Every structure is written in C-alpha cells, then in structure tokens.
C-alpha cells in the first residue's frame, strides 16, 4: 500500500507548531493569572479590563491612524515609483532598482535611531539646519512625522506588487490607446492603472496589515510622549504592573490578531484575484517606454529624495553618531571624532556576544529554518492529501502574528513545557520563534522552488524505483538548489534584521543585535547603540551585496 503517512506526520507536527502557541494564547486570555501560577483561575474579566482601559483605545486609535496614514502615503508613492521604473525612461533605473529594496532590509530600530540622531531635537541635520535657517519646523517625536516615516519606509512593499503587475501588462495595450489618440497621461490613467488596480489594492491591504505589526519605529519615536500603538502597549504590560501581566498580554494579542487575521485572509483572496487578472497578457513583448520629457529629471530627483529620506538620512546619522563622543548645538564634529564606540563594542561582552549570536542565528539558524521549511514544503509538494493542503490555510495564523507576539508565545511555550523550560533563554528558543515568524514566507519560497522542478522528472525517478524520500533527495532538492540557496540568503538577511521577535525571549547569553539595540535604547546608551546599528547594517549590507552578486531576487 502507498505509504504517505510521513506527509501526514509532517503536516501534524507543523499544525502543532502553529496551533500550540495560538491555543496557549487563547487559554491564557481566560485566566486570572499567569498560566503556570497555581493561583490562576478561569475568568472572562480580563477582556473587560482591557476594554475598559483608555490606554488600549488610545493605542488602537493610534494604530489605526498610523496604518491608514501608511496606506495613504505608501500606496500612491509606491505605485508611482513602479510606473516610473517599469514604464518610463527615468534615468539611472538600473542602479536605482536594487536601492529600492534597501528599506526592506533596514532594521526599523536602526531607522528609528537614525532619525533621532539626524533630525531629532539635537540631531546633526537639525543642528546644521538651525545654524543656517533658524529653528527647525519639524518635531521628530510628533505623530505626523511618525506617519511620514513609516509611510515612506513602506513604499517598497507597494512597489514590489505593482511593478510585478505592470511588467505583465503588454505594452501593445498601451500602444493601441496611443494610436487611438490618447496622451501618455490619459493612457497611464485610463489603460494601465485599471489593469494593475487589483495589485495596488493587494498592496494597500498588505501595508495596512504591516501597520498593525509596527513596533520599532513607534516605540522609539512615539514613546517619549507616551504615544503607544498596540504592539508597544503589549510590550508595556511586561513591566507596567511590576511583573509581567500575562493574562492582559494574551488578551491584547487576541485583539491584535482579530484585526490582522482578517486582513491576511483578505490579502490572500485578493492576491488570487489579482494573479488571475495579471495572466491576461502572456506574450512577452519588449516594453516601449513612455518618454518623460522635461519631467525626467524632476522624477529622478524625487526618487533620489525618497531614497535619501528612508536610507541615507537615517544611515548617515547613525554612522556619524557612532564616530563622535558627544553631539550638540555647540559641538564641532572634528573636536569629538573617535573610534572609541567601536572599541566599546568589542569590550562589552554582552554586545560582543550579541554580534556573534546574530551571525550564528542568521547563518546556521537560517539554514536550520530552511531545512524545516523544506521538509514541510516536501510534505505538501504534489501531495494528494487534504491534510497537507490544509497547511496552506493554517500558515495564515503565523502570518497574522506580529514578531513581538510570536516571540512572546514561544517564550510561553518554553515556560509551559517542562522539558523545554531550561532552554527558555537560549538561542534555541530564539531560533524557534524566528522559524515560526518566517514560516509562511519561507514556506512560500521553498514551495515555489519545488514547483519549478518538472513533474515528469520526479515521476521518472518514481517509476525507476525511487521512493518519496529518495526522489526528494535525488531529484527535487538538487534541481531546486538555486532557489533554496536564495531562500537561505533571504533568511540570513531577515534574521540579521529581526529585533522584535526576540524581545521577550532575551536573557543571559542569547542576546542578538536587534534586541540589544532595543535594550540599549531603553538604557539611553546612544553612542554604543549607534555603533551597533552600524555593525548591524554592515552585516545586512554584506548579505545584500552577496545576494546581488549571486543574482538573488530581493523582492521574493
């Protein structure tokens, strides 16, 4: 008889891996105390407590405003950027293209630091501005500034979806409209825009969803005025009442997921529709570019300005801050230049360890996660079973989980399961949380790679006498190795950048750069934080350079 129980086994383990944390959250939300406490009883009152807290409503309102603001800024700009890059003769498209992806891999913590040391009250650019023009008109800690920053840093997400859709629109559709008498602008709005509309809508839902996940930027830029979003509100409960209020945190998590899960499901549905839409034009014709005329250089300058705002401005800030001892209105840069901050990185064992840990977690852990994803991917690859197809739907749950939440529940799972408890503050726990957070993304990458292996190549091995595992080892894996390597590299980049997932899991010995940045910020240690931010960016930059070198697509 056919043995497909291994597929069911893998599917079951994956389901457990996904459902156990979710189950634990739900259970915890109905308890009066932490789930491991002997005093914990069952209650529904916690929900009432959270709903009665004006702080919760403030956080929810802020999150919604932030999320809507992001959509309003990122969607039009991202769509416009996609149109400029794909359909017009914008100068320098070749080297702008990889630069567009940089914001995807910039750590939000680094960005947040960068804005504060660049355009904060006594930031470099603020001080220079003041010398030239007088007091700056902006306040980096204000809500509009926060919205602007998160909006601009998510333009790339929209760009990816819309540019992909634009590339599938055959240019003869546009040419037909041009021949019929339409001006370039009319054609763009009346012909091209309607065709990519579904993709724009998908990206809008994605950006709205990402708005609910935001942690680093609102934490750093909004915290000073006590302006919280749901994720930072959740984080506050860890320390607010003297000791972690797990039941309250569980309830907040449930509320967050009640919003994010429908958004994720909506996005998935819309994405399917959009893909159906985009397959109209199958013929790959050479796109004829719309000439921008004198708008060429204006558009070019606008793109550069955007790149400056989301990459160069914050990066230049942390880089400069990392090589000075102090900074303020009356300080001249050349008087305070120093390499001491980098020396301190090496001297402080905690920081040194966090760098080593990050590299281990990103490189080795990234590979280990890839192996997990590949195993799950193989189990559902060309599987006739309903169980493995159910996984496709189940991975929406971790997708809807912000990193900080996934870290929290993995922390709880490690506390909950006796054999895991000794490892609660280990790199292993960190790895489990990272693997859970990136499960949907990783699974999509490996499934795509496996899907590109010709079906008959696998069947040929089957009839020749190879069992399922042998086929995977001899045919599927070797033939998809380029895709898998790319996935490993992307995992490396994402794991190096990750900061929010590890917040609750951080203990003695498993510090990573991202969480270290958060705690350095908490401690007000800006010098060291800046130099660590530069190191973090260098690690990621190295990964990106390697990816570009190897031809790995960064917009996967």
């Amino acid at each position, binding site marked *: *008889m*056919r043995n497909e129980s291994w597929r069911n086994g893998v599917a079951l383990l994956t389901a457990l891996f996904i459902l156990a944390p979710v189950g634990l959250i739900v259970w915890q939300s109905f308890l009066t105390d932490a789930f491991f406490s002997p005093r914990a009883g069952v209650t529904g009152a916690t929900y009432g407590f959270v709903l009665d807290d004006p702080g919760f409503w403030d956080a929810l309102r802020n999150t919604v405003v932030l999320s809507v603001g992001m959509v309003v800024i990122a969607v039009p700009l991202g769509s416009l950027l996609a149109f400029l890059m794909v359909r017009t003769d914008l100068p320098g498209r070749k080297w702008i293209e990889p630069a567009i992806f940089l914001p995807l891999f910039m750590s939000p913590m680094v960005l947040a630091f960068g804005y504060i040391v660049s355009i904060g009250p006594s930031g470099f650019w603020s001080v220079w501005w003041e010398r030239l023009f007088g007091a700056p008109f902006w306040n980096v800690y204000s809500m509009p500034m926060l919205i602007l920053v998160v909006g601009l840093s998510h333009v790339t997400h929209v760009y990816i979806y819309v540019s992909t859709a634009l590339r599938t629109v055959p240019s003869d559709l546009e040419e037909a409209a041009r021949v019929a008498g339409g001006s370039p602008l009319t054609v763009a709005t009346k012909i091209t825009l309607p065709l990519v509309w579904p993709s724009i809508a998908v990206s809008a839902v994605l950006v709205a969803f990402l708005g609910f996940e935001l942690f680093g930027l609102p934490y750093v830029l909004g915290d000073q005025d006590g302006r919280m979003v749901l994720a930072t509100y959740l984080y506050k409960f860890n320390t607010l009442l003297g000791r972690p209020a797990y039941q309250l945190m569980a309830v907040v998590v449930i509320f967050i997921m009640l919003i994010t899960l429908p958004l994720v499901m909506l996005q998935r549905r819309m994405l399917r529709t959009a893909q159906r839409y985009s397959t109209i034009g199958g013929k790959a014709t050479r796109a004829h570019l719309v000439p921008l005329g004198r708008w060429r250089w204006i558009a070019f300058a606008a793109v550069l300005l955007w790149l400056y705002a989301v990459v160069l401005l914050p990066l230049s800030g942390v880089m400069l801050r990392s090589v000075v001892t102090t900074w303020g209105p009356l300080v001249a840069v050349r008087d305070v230049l120093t390499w001491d901050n980098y020396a301190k990185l090496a001297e402080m064992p905690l920081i040194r360890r966090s760098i080593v840990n990050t590299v281990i977690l990103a490189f080795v852990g990234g590979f280990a996660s890839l192996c997990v994803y590949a195993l799950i991917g193989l189990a559902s690859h060309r599987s006739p079973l309903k169980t493995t197809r159910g996984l496709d739907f189940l991975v929406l749950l971790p997708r809807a989980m912000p990193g900080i939440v996934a870290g929290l529940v993995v922390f709880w799972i490690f506390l909950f399961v006796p054999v895991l408890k000794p490892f609660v503050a280990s790199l292993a726990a960190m790895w489990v949380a990272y693997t859970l957070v990136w499960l949907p993304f990783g699974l999509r990458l490996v499934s795509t790679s496996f899907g590109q292996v010709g079906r008959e190549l696998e*069947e*040929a091995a089957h*009839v*020749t*006498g190879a*069992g399922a595992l*042998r086929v995977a080892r001899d045919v599927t894996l070797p*033939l998809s190795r380029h895709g898998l390597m790319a996935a490993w590299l992307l995992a490396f980049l994402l794991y190096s950048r990750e900061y929010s997932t590890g917040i609750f899991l951080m203990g003695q010995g498993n510090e990573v750069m991202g969480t270290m940045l958060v705690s350095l910020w908490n401690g007000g240690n800006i010098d060291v934080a800046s130099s660590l931010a530069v190191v973090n960016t260098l690690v990621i930059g190295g990964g990106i350079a390697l990816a570009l070198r190897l031809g790995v697509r960064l917009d996967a």
Partner: protein
Amino acid sequence: MPELIVENIHLKYGTAEVLGGASFSVEKGKIAALLGPSGSGKTTLLRTIAGLERACEGRIRVSGQEVLNCSAGLDLPAEKRGLGFVFQSYALWPNRTVFDNVAYGLRLRKVAETEIRRKVGAVCEVLGLGHLQQRFPAQLSGGQQQRVAIARSLAYDPAVLLLDEPLSNLDAKLRDEARAFLKELITREERAAVIVTHDQIEALAIADTIILLNGGVIAQEGSPEDLYNRPKTLFTADFIGNNVRISGKVVTAGDGFATLDCDGLRVTGRMGQPKTVGEDGTAVCRMDRLTLAAPGEPDAVEMHRATSMFLGEKWEHVYRLGGHSLRVLTDGPVAQETSPIRIPRESVWVF
C-alpha cells in the same frame, strides 16, 4: 500468460469520470498502442498502469504479480511496480550525465558498480549511445535524448515498458527511423510494451494490437488490419484512416451492404450495424480509395469538378454534388468538368 493484464480500470478526477472500465493485455515481445483523440484518457490509462495515477476500481497484473487490486485495497506505488516508463518530455535529469541517468535504476537496486558499468554500457551500445555516456542531456539532440530515455527505462530489465508519445517530440524524418528502431528493439528485447499515441499512422505501423479509446472507454481493440478493415463503430471507422463522412437516408439494405442517398449522391458500403430502408445513416469513405471511374465500373457517381491543385507527386481535385464535396487524388491533371467518381464499397462503412 500475458506479461501485462489490465482489467476494468475506473478513474475519476473529482466527480468527472476519466476512465470508465478499460481492460486489455499484452504478451511478451508485443506492442500494444493506446490510440485515441485528446481527452480520451489514453495517457491517464498509461499513468495508472505505472502507478502515477490512482484508479478507484480495477486490477492490474505485471508478470503474473498483482500490483493493483482496488477491491482488495492493493495499490503498489510506482516505485514498487518495476516498470519502465518513457515520458513524452523524456524527463532526463539535467544534472546527471547520460551514464548516471541510465544507471539510476540499477543504483536504486543496489547493483554492484562493476555490474552497473557493464549493463549501462551494454544498453547504451544497443541504443547507439556508446560514445555519449559522459554528456549531459542538454548537450544531446532530440533523437539522442529519446534514446537515453529508452535506455534508462530498459537498464534495470523491466518486463513491461510504457511509452507516452515517445515519438511526438522528434521531427518527421527522425520519427520514421525511430519508429522502426523501437519496434525492432522491443521485439528483440522481448518486453511487453504499451505505447500511447494520438497518431494513427504511428499506431498502425508499430503496434501488434491497437486499443482505441474514446471518452475513457475502449471503442475497439484488435490488430491494426482489424481496426482499419473491420471497424465496429462509427467512431472507429472515422478515427482510423483519412475519411470523409456523408449523411443520408438508407435506400437499399441487404447482403451486408447498404446504399445511402445523400441529396442525390449515392454511396454503397458495408453495414457496420444492421440498417433498414428509410433510416438515417452515415457513410464513412476512405478518401485515398476514391478514384476517377472507368466507364462501366460499379459504385460510380457523376460529379462536378470544382477545383484542382498540384501537390507535386499527385494532383488533388475537389468534386462537388449538391452540398457534398469529395477530394480525389490522380496522377495527372484532369481536363473534364464532370467525371464519374468511384467510391468502392469495400472502403465504405455505413452506420
């Protein structure tokens, strides 16, 4: 006992029935061709035999051993059936050399390396691939790739060889050579082979038995001559050969022959099923048997020539009568505007 016995295979995709009870068997050294229009289920049937599709009913025996018995809950996976399969795309693993492609089945069977070397060498020699063993599939021509695919499926000595449209990816000239080669090879190597094809010429040429499929069921099974000369259904008569179909009313019937009146065009042919006078009927005429009739010849109809075309070897003329047109081949040009056209009754079937 036949090497391969297929009994009453049923297969469904969801609720749609793809195979509705196909049965046939193949002896050692013989070739059976699964022939049919696209969507008739021929490839699905072949894949079911290989274990790549799952039947919901039926039995399959290979060399006397049961590999599928749905009522007993037996369904061996493809890797346990020990069959050879040649894919339409050849499915050569691009990351392995010809040698490694061919040796794979032997390696899976844990054959000693020296024995593998000997066997692969022998198979490659037979298929004329001796000098190409260290090449990668991408470095081979289409014909060579096809032979590697066959070598790979023969290397581990399967009793039954399944071939899915093995010749369709070759260009016309190579295809004729490969067809003869394949037939000779299978007879000499004494395998039982099942070959899927949509090309009736190929099936007629290569097969010992043709299994003609229509809509997931067997329309007719028999030797190529049987199918060509004794079609039992309208579908078979029409599918095999290059035909013209004419519909009309039966005017006379008896003695195994019936005559149809199709708006003035009278056609006489063998009855494929009993017909009575006054019934509607359809005549299937083999186009290549139509000739210009000599005076006094039977089965001739006077028709009007609409146009003529020079094809190089032959001339093709279109003759019309009423709403019907027939294409007639001749060796030379024809001057007359009207001619008697002979529609020989031995080459016409009435259903």
